[in-house]
């Protein structure tokens, strides 16, 4: 905006603003607005269509509730749903935290020792490629605490992208810089702290973005597998429970909360990535 205002306020007698340039700027502004407005409009139309279909066909609410009813349920059950949301969030973030610590820790270990990498990386891959729904039942047999079981499941799903990306990042430090560190007789530790970890940061943050979403998926899936028994009832449990009772509006309400949580996690990890890279990394730079 300052760019388009500048010439007009700067040069009073002659307006040097090129009409061509102005048109381009205007188009850019329209495009920026459209980026937000279009998806919102599409969403609004879809919700309105949903509403119309339910009303026009007189669909009973235990088959398909209208958007109004879902919203109403969301409000009425807010105490219950909010408590469940907190539990799901807790598991998700705890799993993500452990995934970050474990993933980065293992990646650093791999970068320090080829033997460690050779010994352990196959197991990381095996954990990653085995569907969590097939491991989870075993976990809940052997692990007493339901919370710990859920956490473990979510962690298994979330840690691999952190590990894989960070490992790649630690290895991709500039070769000449490596040589420079060697010439200056840097210790292994100094090389790690001052060269490899900063080089790995963009890769790690890419992994974090993926892991955030996966931690939520892991938490939800594990809760389905864990079933409805016991304490610690997250959003997935609410969906299951509401399903048994044919409380379809509540199922929708819980689903919306899960989707919003996913979007929020993605937004938060993207923001973290942007803030930590904006000073120097290509991915976060604005071209002028």
């Amino acid at each position, binding site marked *: 905006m300052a760019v388009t205002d500048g010439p007009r306020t700067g040069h009073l007698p002659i307006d040097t603003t090129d009409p061509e340039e102005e048109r381009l700027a205007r188009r850019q502004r329209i495009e920026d607005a459209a980026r937000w407005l279009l998806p919102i409009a599409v969403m609004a139309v879809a919700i309105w269509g949903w509403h119309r279909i339910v009303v026009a066909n007189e669909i009973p609410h235990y088959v398909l509730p209208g958007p109004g009813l879902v919203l109403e349920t969301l409000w009425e059950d807010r105490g219950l749903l909010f408590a469940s949301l907190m539990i799901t969030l807790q598991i998700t973030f705890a799993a993500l935290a452990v995934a970050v610590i474990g993933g980065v820790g293992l990646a650093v270990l791999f970068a320090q020792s080829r033997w460690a990498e050779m010994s352990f990386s196959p197991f990381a891959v095996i954990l990653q490629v085995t569907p969590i729904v097939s491991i989870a039942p075993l976990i809940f047999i052997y692990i007493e605490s339901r919370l710990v079981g859920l956490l473990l499941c979510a962690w298994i799903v979330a840690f691999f992208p952190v590990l894989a990306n960070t490992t790649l990042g630690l290895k991709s430090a500039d070769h*000449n*810089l490596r040589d420079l560190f060697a010439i*200056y007789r840097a210790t292994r530790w100094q090389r790690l702290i001052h060269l490899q970890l900063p080089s790995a940061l963009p890769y790690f943050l890419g992994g974090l973005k993926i892991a955030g979403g996966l931690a939520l998926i892991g938490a939800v899936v594990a809760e389905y597998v864990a079933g409805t028994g016991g304490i610690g009832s997250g959003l997935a449990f609410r969906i299951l429970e509401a399903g048994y009772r044919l409380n379809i509006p509540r199922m929708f309400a819980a689903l919306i909360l899960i989707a919003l949580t996913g979007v929020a996690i993605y937004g938060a990890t993207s923001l973290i990535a942007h803030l930590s890279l904006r000073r120097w990394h290509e991915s976060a730079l604005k071209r002028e």
Partner: protein
Amino acid sequence: MTGETRSGAHNLPGARPGDGNLQGTDAPQMTEPDPILRLRQVDKTFAGNVVALRGMSMEVRQGDFISLLGPSGCGKSTALRLIAGLMRPTHGRIEWDGGAGTDDLGVVFQEPTLMPWATVEKNVWLPFRLRGQPLSRTRDRIREALGLVGLDGFAERYPRELSGGMKMRVSIARALVTNARLILMDEPFAALDEITRQKLNDDLLNLKAQTGATVIFVTHSVFESVFLSNRILVMAPRPGRVIDEIAVPEPYPRGMDWRTAPAYGEITRRTSETLHAGLAQPEEP
């Protein structure tokens, strides 16, 4: 065995075979300081029998500005990497004055090789930082080095905010900042345009005059080598070797008038001839 014995034989600068008619006795640094570095018949063979370097010998004295001049693939970078201790020679020895110590080096690569996540100041701080010296105690020295390369006021910038030539200057400041006794430069200006390159050549000589640094400078530009150095080792490929050493007795400081001096043209011509002679007759198979 091969032609490198010509350059391997010299002990005194005055006795160098490439000297010819140009005197090797009038410059002040010819008072024969002891070599700070000696290469003795150094060979480097890579896996697959690639002979990157054969029988390279040279002596580096305090205050020298030595150019390694040769076409692509003649082992110039290999020689620098050997000197920097990044790899070991297959045969031969590299001797340092006062022991094995090579940690007193400054290096400039062909690319600026800066850490993009660190400011200019922090990049130049690196050699100190790796020796455990805090920024607060070395800041004056860092600012001084940045001043020497003409980058006053850029300390807080990030590398991406600088032009290619400015990044190269940061890289040079980093090599200078510790007052290293030997500075290795591997085609530092090859990627720059001619004007920037000449400017940086001038600046480099000014720096040398001010700091008394000893430099080994890799280049494949005849003009650059004659302008900058007091000794030129001309190299040839397959196998990589030194075919001649040419002295450039013009005293420092050198400036624009050196670029237009008759002696400059004469040495440039002779160096070119040597270079092309080395290309024309490949050594043994």
